[in-house]
């Protein structure tokens, strides 16, 4: 990896870590922590643009990227530089959701850490990355597995949803948002009777006992659209 000349004159090769975080507290915290370690050198970036330039310039071997990095977020940075640099990209966040962990990994991140990590824990993780390991705490691994299971469930639900017509899906989308038949009829410019008929077909096709169950099914199949 072409990282340019070492910035210190010592013979010891230091691992260059880029901390890309919009919050100065995290940059200062990592800076203070790594200053005590002789095997790390720190670079800092405050947004996606700055971090992209440093990463594509080959200046860092490890990047600790905030999930909410200003200028598009950590996923945006990972997607931009993935395959264009050899930096190990580690996303980190406060109390991340299982979806954000999975999205980071699928976007190309090599690991995921919680910002609640201890100082010694972060140092161990960074040394592990430098040695070729992928940092993922037990909690994070659990979240990833749950997210993968969630994806499987969604995929199965989407398969089941394929039996519905486009109009039935439209009706079900309204139902999942708590709309009444009258509201749906008005929104789709059809009669209330037609809405009822669509609902009967939906319940029959999905083999679910109630309107509420159909709504829950819709959310499981089209979670992002339904909760947006």
């Amino acid at each position: 990896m072409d990282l340019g000349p070492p910035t210190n004159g010592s013979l010891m090769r230091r691992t260059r870590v880029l901390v890309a975080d919009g919050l100065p507290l995290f940059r200062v915290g990592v800076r203070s922590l790594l200053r005590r370690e002789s095997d790390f050198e720190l670079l800092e970036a405050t947004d996606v643009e700055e971090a992209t330039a440093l990463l594509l310039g080959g200046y860092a071997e490890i990047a600790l990227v905030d999930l909410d990095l200003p200028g598009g977020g950590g996923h945006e940075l990972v997607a931009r530089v993935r395959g264009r640099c050899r930096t190990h990209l580690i996303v980190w966040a406060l109390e991340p959701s299982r979806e954000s962990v999975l999205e980071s990994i699928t976007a190309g991140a090599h690991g995921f850490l919680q910002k609640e990590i201890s100082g010694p824990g972060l140092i161990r993780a960074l040394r592990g990355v430098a040695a070729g390991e992928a940092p993922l705490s037990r909690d994070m691994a659990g979240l990833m597995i749950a997210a993968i299971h969630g994806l499987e469930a969604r995929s199965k639900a989407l398969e089941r949803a394929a039996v519905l017509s486009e109009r039935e899906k439209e009706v079900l989308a309204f139902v999942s948002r708590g709309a009444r038949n009258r509201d749906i009829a008005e929104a789709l410019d059809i009669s209330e009777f037609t809405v009822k008929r669509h609902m009967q077909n939906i319940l029959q096709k999905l083999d679910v006992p109630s309107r509420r169950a159909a709504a829950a099914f819709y959310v499981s199949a089209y979670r992002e659209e339904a909760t947006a």
Partner: protein
Amino acid sequence: MTERNEPLVAVVCAVPILGEALTAALDGLAECKVIPARQPELGGLLKSLQPDAIVVDDEQEAAVAATYARFARTPVINVSLREQRLTRLEDGKWEAPDESDISPETIRNLVAGGIYGRRAN
């Protein structure tokens, strides 16, 4: 301020990196004692430490710190990392300071103001 060479700031944190950042930010102004959040008996610990100021990043612990601070008349600064804002315990009530960005400099200024404002009173 109690009889110490340097003021003592208790940093109660759920996010240990915050403790690192504040220890660096308060260097030269105060000695920091980093206390991991969700420790049993935080109130007792604060009572024995008698800090000159408290910085906390956890809502639950902020409530415990406030209980102690109202009694000991100690300034408390609550750093909400999630909401990215600061609040300060002023006359027993949480208030947003004029500068409420969660930068190390702002926190340092608030801590200094809290410690030396208290000394002047």
